[in-house]
C-alpha cells in the first residue's frame, strides 16, 4: 500500500485514481490525458495500472464466467412474491396484472410443449427399415443441462468456422431449408367456461375443487390451444456442403442424389389448460394434450443421427452419458432441465411420471395415460403438487 501512497503525490501529476479513471474512459476532461502524453513518469504509471487492471479483469471474469441470468425465468419467480407481501403494500395491486400473468403462463405451457417436442430425440430404428419413423411420447427422462451449455458449443463451433465469413454462413443456413408452421406462441386463448373448452377440445380430466390446496379458487380460468404442425424441409446437398466446409463430424445425411430433400414434421394436437389462482397470487396449472409426434423422413439413418448428436462438438461428456443411459429412444421424451432443478420418478394414478422441482419456479409433474400427456405445475411444494396431480381424473 505504501508504494501507492508514494506514487500518488508527485507534484502536479495526477494520482492513481485519476489515472485509473482515465483508463476506463471515466474522465470528462482531456487535461489528464494531455499531461500523461507529456509526462514519462505518468505514462509508465498508466501502463502499470493498465497491466494490473487487465490482469484483474481477466482473473475475476475467469472465476465467474458462464452464468448468464435468465430474466424471464426470474420474472416468473418474482411475480408471485410481489403479491404475497407479508407487510402491506404501498402500491395498489389490482388483479389485472395476474390475468396477464395467467395468459403468460398458459402461453408458456404451450411453449413448454413446443420446446419439449423440439428436444425430442430421434427414435432408434433399424437401418434396413425404410418406413417412416415416428416418435410418440410414452415415457419421460430428464437430463441436467449446465447453465453455460451454449458457450462450449459456441467455442467448438467457432473453432471449426475458422476464417469463414460468419455473415455468409448465416445466409447459407437460412437458405438451407424451408420452415412452415401453424404453431404460434400466442395460440393459447381463454374461453368462457369448462363447457366451452369441452366443445373445442372434448372431454378432459381435472381435479375436484376439494382436492386443491386451501385458498385456491374452485373455478379455474380455462384456456385451449389449437392443433398445429411445423414442417422443415432440408436441402440435403447444401447441408452436406456446409458440414464439409465446417468439418463437422456429421455422417447421417443420406446421398443427396437419392434424397434431394428431407422433411421433418412436428404435429402438436390441441390442448387444454386450467389455471387455478390462490389468494396469495400463486397459480396451479393443470393441462393435457394428446402426445405430439415427430415424423422423420425416409432416408435418414436414425442410428447414425443419434450418434451424430451424441458426438456433436462441445456437447459435455456428462450430457452424453445421461443420453446414452436412456435405453428406449422411440417413446422417451427427453426433458432438459437446468442445474439446480431436481427430478424424480413418480406414480400418478398408477401411471409412471416425472416430477421436476425448480427452487425458483416451483414444481411440475408430467405423466402419460392412454396416449394423453398430463401436466400439472405450480408454485407449491412437490408433495402438495403431487396430491393435485393424483386428483386429476
Amino acid at each position, binding site marked *: 500500500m505504501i508504494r501507492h501512497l508514494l506514487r500518488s503525490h508527485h507534484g502536479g501529476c495526477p494520482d492513481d*485514481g*485519476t489515472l485509473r479513471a482515465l483508463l476506463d474512459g*471515466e474522465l470528462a476532461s482531456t487535461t489528464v490525458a494531455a499531461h500523461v502524453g507529456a509526462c514519462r513518469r505518468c505514462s509508465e504509471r498508466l501502463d502499470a495500472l493498465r497491466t494490473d487492471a487487465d490482469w484483474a479483469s481477466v*482473473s475475476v471474469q475467469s472465476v465467474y464466467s458462464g452464468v448468464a441470468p435468465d430474466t424471464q425465468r426470474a420474472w416468473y419467480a418474482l411475480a408471485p*412474491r410481489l403479491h404475497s407481501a407479508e407487510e402491506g403494500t404501498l*402500491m395498489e395491486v389490482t388483479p389485472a396484472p395476474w390475468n396477464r400473468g395467467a395468459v403468460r403462463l398458459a402461453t408458456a405451457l404451450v411453449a413448454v410443449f413446443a420446446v419439449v417436442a423440439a428436444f425430442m430425440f430421434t427414435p432408434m430404428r433399424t437401418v434396413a427399415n425404410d418406413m417412416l419413423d415416428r416418435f410418440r411420447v410414452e415415457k419421460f427422462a430428464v437430463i441436467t443441462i449446465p447453465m453455460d451449455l451454449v458457450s462450449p458449443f459456441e467455442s467448438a463451433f467457432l473453432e471449426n468456422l475458422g476464417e469463414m465469413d460468419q455473415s455468409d454462413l448465416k445466409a447459407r443456413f437460412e437458405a438451407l431449408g424451408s420452415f412452415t408452421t401453424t404453431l404460434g406462441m400466442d395460440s393459447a386463448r381463454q374461453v368462457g367456461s369448462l363447457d366451452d373448452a369441452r366443445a373445442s377440445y372434448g372431454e378432459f380430466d381435472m381435479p375436484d375443487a376439494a382436492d386443491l390446496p386451501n385458498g385456491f379458487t374452485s373455478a379455474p380460468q380455462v384456456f385451449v390451444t389449437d392443433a398445429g404442425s411445423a414442417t422443415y424441409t432440408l436441402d440435403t446437398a447444401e447441408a452436406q456442403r456446409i458440414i464439409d466446409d465446417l468439418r463437422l463430424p456429421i455422417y447421417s445425411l443420406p446421398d443427396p442424389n437419392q434424397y434431394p430433400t428431407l422433411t421433418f414434421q412436428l404435429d402438436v394436437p390441441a390442448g387444454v389448460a386450467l389455471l387455478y389462482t390462490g389468494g396469495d397470487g400463486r397459480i396451479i396449472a393443470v393441462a393435457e394434450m394428446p402426445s405430439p409426434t415427430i415424423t422423420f423422413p425416409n432416408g435418414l439413418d436414425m442410428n447414425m443421427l443419434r450418434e451424430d448428436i451424441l458426438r456433436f462438438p462441445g456437447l459435455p461428456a456428462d450430457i452424453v452419458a445421461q443420453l446414452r443411459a436412456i435405453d428406449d429412444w422411440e417413446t422417451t421424451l427427453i426433458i432438459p432441465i437446468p442445474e439446480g432443478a431436481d427430478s424424480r420418478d413418480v406414480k400418478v394414478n398408477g401411471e409412471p411420471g416425472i416430477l421436476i422441482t425448480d427452487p425458483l419456479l416451483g414444481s411440475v409433474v408430467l405423466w402419460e395415460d392412454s396416449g394423453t400427456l398430463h401436466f400439472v405445475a405450480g408454485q407449491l411444494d412437490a408433495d402438495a403438487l403431487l396430491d393435485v396431480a393424483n386428483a386429476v381424473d
Partner: protein
Amino acid sequence: MSGRPVRAAAGIEGDTTDVSALTLNVSDATLLHAMRQGDERAFEELFSRHYPRVHSVAYRITGNREDAEELALDVFVRLHRRPLEDDANVAGWLFRVVTNDALNAVRSRKRRLGWLQRFARSEPVRRLDDDPLDVVALQDDAARVRAALRRLPERQRAVLALRAAGLSYSEIAAALGMRPGSVGTTLARAERALRDAYDTEERERGGR
C-alpha cells in the same frame, strides 16, 4: 391493461399494444412515476432493464448462483413494496441494496462455510478435447484467484465485483456509498492488492 399510464406519463398516445417498444426509450424516472400510479407494466420494465446487472453484482459478491437469484429478486420485491420517489436513481439504489445484502449474506455464510471454499470445490466447464494438463492448470489458477480474492478487504472485493459486473464509476459510487472521485483510487488499489495477494498465494502454495 396496465400499459397506458406509462404511455401517458411518457407522452405517448395511441392504441398500439407493443409496450416493450414504447418503453424502450422511457426514462427510469418516468417508469417510477408510472409505477407509483399503480402501473405494473412499468415495474416489469424496470425489472427487465436492471435485473441482469443486479443479479450479476450479487453473483460476483456471493459467488453462488442460487443466493444471487434470491438476493436479486428480494431487492425487486422491496422496490415493488416501497417505490422510490420519481427523481431517485433507481439503478444506484438497486446496486447499493443488493451490494449490502450480498456482503451481509457472505458475512453470515462465512460462519458456516467460506464462500470461496464453495467455489474452490466447483470445477470449470471442461471441453471434451481439453488437454488434461491444461485443465489442471486452469483449475489451479482459478483456485489461486479465489484464494487471493478471499484475502482482500470486503470493500476491495466489492469494487472488483461491481466493476466486473459492468457498472460505471457513478454506479459503483452509489452502490458503495462513496464519492465518484474515489472509485478510481479504490479500484486501482484493489487491482494491485489482488495481484499481490495472488503472488503471495502462489509463493505459499509453491512452498508447500
